[in-house]
């Protein structure tokens, strides 16, 4: 049996290492950080962690419907492809910073990419 992507990346420890870096990048990015104004840091961090767990192919409860619902308000406030691209950029940037091999980064990116239409409500 081959090891799952999640395990290859280092499982939960890897998610924990990534979440701070990823979230800090996102909050520092003026293109997208307005979407994070007025949200509670802890709650948001928990969501970032859930997102990364999902993107790493780890255990998650991801359903397209939930993703749609969670982002519907943001879509109304102008969330579009350019913002999604920015998040993708930070996701790969985070993994590069953590010295993750390129072939695994590609797999993570592909999983995250597969949520694009749900996130953007299409």
């Amino acid at each position, binding site marked *: 049996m081959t090891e799952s992507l999640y395990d290859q990346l280092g499982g939960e420890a890897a998610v*924990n290492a990534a979440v701070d870096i990823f979230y*800090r990048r996102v*909050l520092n990015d003026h293109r997208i950080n307005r979407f994070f104004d007025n949200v509670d840091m802890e709650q948001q*961090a928990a969501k970032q962690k859930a997102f990364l*767990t999902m993107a790493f192919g780890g255990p998650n409860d991801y359903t397209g419907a939930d993703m749609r619902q969670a982002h519907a308000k943001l879509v109304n406030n102008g969330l579009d492809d350019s913002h999604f691209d920015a998040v993708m950029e930070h996701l790969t940037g985070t993994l590069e910073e953590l010295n993750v091999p390129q072939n695994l980064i590609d797999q993570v990116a592909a999983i995250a990419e597969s949520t694009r239409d749900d996130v953007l409500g299409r």
Partner: protein
Amino acid sequence: MMTVTKIKIDEQTLLCQVGEPLLDALLRENIDVSHGCRQGACQSCMLRSLKGKPPAEAQHGLKDGLKQQNYFLACLCYPEQDMEIAYTHHRDYVTHATVKAKQMLNPEIMQLVIETDEELDYYAGQFVNLKRDDGLTRSYSISNHRMHGRQLSFHVRRLMGGQFSEWAHQELQIGDRLAVSEPQGLCYYQSGQPQQNLLLIGTGSGLAPLAGIISEALHDGHRGEIHLYHGSSDMNGLYWSEEMRSLQQRYQNFHYTPCISRGEPPAGIAKGRAHEIAFKDCSALKGWRVFLCGHPDMVSSSKRQAFLAGASMADIYADAFHVASSSVD
């Protein structure tokens, strides 16, 4: 032997089947528990055991402080025995106390010292609820370190129209009795990593828990730099400056900066808001531990700023209750 277990939450009791995660049992009974991943990753299903340790697997990934206080994740919890649980903290009163001393620290803040009938297991910086005879209750942070055992002190700020604080200032007498809850909250000093730098920012009587944390850290032999910024709008809100200055003289690694945001400060006091000055001085916080207490706006914006300055989320401590205690400003 594995058997069905009885779970008590608030007034309700339900059964958890063998091999069934507690989260599923709760949801099955229409008890509304927030949850997400169901795999122990998102920590949104955190609950607290009121009687004894939860199963070790159910505490996977939680901060030490949470573990010590018997928090656990419902989705990872397969109860081994009957449990009594709560969403967060239970409000039970565990002991009573006698008022030992009252002393004004500045025109609006009084130090209240009580002695509990039983010894409490607490950490400086945690808070307790104090309740008077008729049930009126308020939360106050413990400002002394743990070595005092049954002696607890608080900084009670007199709030305009504040029922409890007015009463405590004016009518509460030495020798009077109060009910005391179990110590609560996660904003406290934990030993280990004595070389870590600490940044503490407080406004008003938010100094109380910070002073407790500092004395506990120093008492514990903390070696990293400890920076305290205490702010108020004017000089009336500052207090304990002498104590903090003498602490600064005794400990080379302790640095104290009092700040006022309105008017011209006298010598030795910084001009501006405590958190703005703090982040100007300490702009690279990677590896630091950060403690925030006081005005809710200050706390939430500082949380973000500390994080962006490099502090890890797990190393930023702030207690929600201070929102309530400082909302009348």
